[in-house]
């Protein structure tokens, strides 16, 4: 497969997954801000910006930090390259460039999503229609992933699409966890101590795993188990371990070439997620662990780019 084509497909899938994750983060932020205590208000509002690394840009675009401005910036601002709007735009743009290799259902899903998002009034999204909008974004992403899985021929296009989706998802899960860990548990002594049940529940909901937690652990919500679920639980499809199962599977199917450095790192990460114990993770420091994982995910992205997709 042409590197340029693989690059488009990889990024098309990443952008769509990113749009979904941003909707998830905004959804949970809205909840925390509306129902949470005032003293953590600003931290909660800052979290989405630090997860996406857009604090600087936000300050350029807005004077004050409140929920409507944050949603406006993260959902619909076309000047913000990580906004949902921008992600949907680029997903569609990438698809357009390789349209002849996609199934018509895939193309139509992305095209229709893009046409619809442009017609959604800003006032609704930053007002009472926020939740409805986030749900719509998640639905469109589910639809796209399902349509892709259900229609595209099993070949390199499929492989690079899966690789993009799950690399993006792994990155996102690690970021959400890291930012929340940081805010909620500033010191190691507090781990398992003064936990705010509500905040941890919101975190679980942001990755659609509140019910999963109950079902798998049949227990109260303890941060260590939340971390276990989001990092090591491969039955939970948004966990790091589950994402890396998919990343490894996709890379296994991608035909090799001389530069195997991307595969090597992916397999190493996969092994680390398979054989580590959550107690060990906490002993070494959850934040340190997540920082290392995020660095590795970033490095893996660069190596994939170099080995298969061509210059950035």
């Amino acid at each position: 497969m042409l590197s340029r084509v693989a690059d488009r497909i990889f990024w098309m899938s990443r952008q769509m997954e990113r749009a979904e994750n941003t909707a998830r983060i905004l959804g949970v932020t809205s909840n925390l801000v509306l129902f949470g205590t005032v003293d953590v208000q600003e931290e909660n509002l800052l979290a989405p910006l630090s997860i996406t690394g857009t604090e600087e840009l936000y300050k350029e675009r807005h004077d004050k930090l409140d929920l409507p401005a944050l949603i406006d910036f993260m959902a619909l601002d076309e000047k913000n390259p990580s906004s949902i709007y921008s992600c949907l735009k680029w997903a569609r743009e990438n698809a357009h460039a390789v349209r002849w290799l996609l199934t018509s259902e895939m193309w139509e899903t992305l095209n229709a999503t893009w046409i619809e998002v442009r017609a959604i009034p800003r006032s609704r999204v930053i007002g009472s229609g926020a939740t409805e909008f986030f749900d719509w974004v998640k639905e469109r992403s589910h639809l796209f992933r399902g349509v892709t899985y259900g229609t595209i021929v099993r070949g390199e296009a499929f492989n690079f699409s899966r690789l993009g989706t799950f690399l993006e998802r792994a990155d996102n899960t690690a970021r959400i966890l890291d930012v929340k860990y940081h805010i909620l548990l500033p010191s190691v002594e507090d781990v398992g101590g003064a936990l705010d049940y509500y905040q941890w529940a919101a975190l679980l909901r942001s990755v659609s795993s509140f019910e999963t937690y109950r079902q798998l652990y049949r227990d109260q919500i303890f941060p260590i188990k939340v971390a276990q679920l989001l990092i090591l639980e491969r039955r939970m499809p948004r966990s790091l371990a589950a994402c890396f199962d998919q990343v490894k599977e996709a890379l296994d199917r991608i035909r090799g070439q001389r530069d195997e450095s991307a595969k090597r790192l992916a397999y190493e990460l996969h092994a680390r997620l398979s054989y580590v114990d959550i107690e060990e993770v906490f002993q070494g420091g959850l934040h340190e662990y997540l920082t290392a994982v995020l660095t590795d995910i970033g490095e893996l992205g660069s190596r994939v780019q170099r080995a298969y997709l061509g210059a950035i």
Partner: protein
Amino acid sequence: MERGPYDEMRAADGAVRAHFRALADWLAETPAERVAEKRREADLLFHRVGITFAVYGDNAGAERLIPFDTIPRVIPRGEWNELEKGLRQRVAALNRFLHDVYHGQEILKAGVIPAEQVLTNEAYQVAMLGLELPNHVYSHIAGIDLVRHEDGKYHVLEDNLRTPSGVSYMLENRKMMMRLFPELFARQHVHPVEHYPGLLLETLRAAAPPAARDPVVAVLTPGQHNSAYFEHAFLAQQMGVELVEGMDLFVKDGFVHMRTTTGPQRVDVIYRRIDDAFLDPLAFRQDSLLGVPGLLSVYRAGNVALANAIGTGVADDKSTYPYVPEMIRFYLHEEPILENVPTWQCKRAQDLEYVLEKMNELVVKEVQGSGGYGMLIGPAAKKSEIDAFRSRIKANPANYIAQPTLSLSTCPTFVESGIAPRHVDLRPFVLSGKETKLVPGGLTRVALQEGSLVVNSSQGGGTKDTWVVD
């Protein structure tokens, strides 16, 4: 006595011509609502498949559907056989001419064509001098535009030897007709065209450097914003080869390679759909981002084939066109089977005088123009337009030719008021490899506006399926 345009379906006495009879019967029997319903279905299908073209000058990158008319144009087998002979003859002579002007230049020495007409032509490429091409083929894919005069006789309106487009519409139109009206195909034998992509691939592989044992072919496109991008993608997909952009290709160790996920892969034949000037920024336009640096040197070393070859424009230029019948006589020692349309060359003082005087009756064209741009249709033009064009001709007479306003034959076509005759032309595609191949028929373009003679899709023309029937 003034005659009207040639009606392809009906003879002068109103009787339906024999080869149109099956279709006319079917039209008469089929309820209008059913046909209208099928037309809506066709629109929907074309939209869904995304058979679109980008329109230049329209708000950047806009895509439009080329209107598809559901009434086919029918050509009897015998008539097509004659046409095919004429097309083979013409393209053979044009390829001989191209080989000649880049080698011995016998035709110039013999004084059949003025040397300056060829050598000072901006499409003439000195880079091609002395280069040996497999099978001596320069224009592997040629699209020859034909029109019918009032007496029904076919004439060549122009030769397209660079990057002729439209064949994807020919194929999609047929697919659509078979899907919408299968019963029509049961009534008479329509010669198939579906094997065109296979023939094209065979033609391209035949152009490969002799050393390439299992030649790799790629289609080179300027990208998704080009007006014919759909066709580039379509042909690559149909042939099962890669669709590449300039940035996907690079030159190393004397060969052209594609950047792929498994590393560099050598390319032996490039079916390029970008103009000469943009092919290689090191050799031609330096500002070209569409091309491949170093491509020309690989080409000249015989390590990659380009289809069509560089420099074919010197043979399809409208100022060269008047000499094609002479080329046929010179190289093949045959009389031309297909005639040219009479053409006045404004570079000749006598012709210029005539053209300036009769502008309101003539069609005036730029010699390098295409796509219906840069032309004036005298009888349809306003006085101010004619005056503006006149001063442009006077400023640079050699840049213009003129032809009589042809009436163009008509075919029944669906229009808002029902079925009415509309003007059509025909573009058959001639493939030259080891042998010359054609599929029966070609692309019929139709001017949908009443009385209009402009069939170009960029100017509101539509297309029809073209049937060659027994």
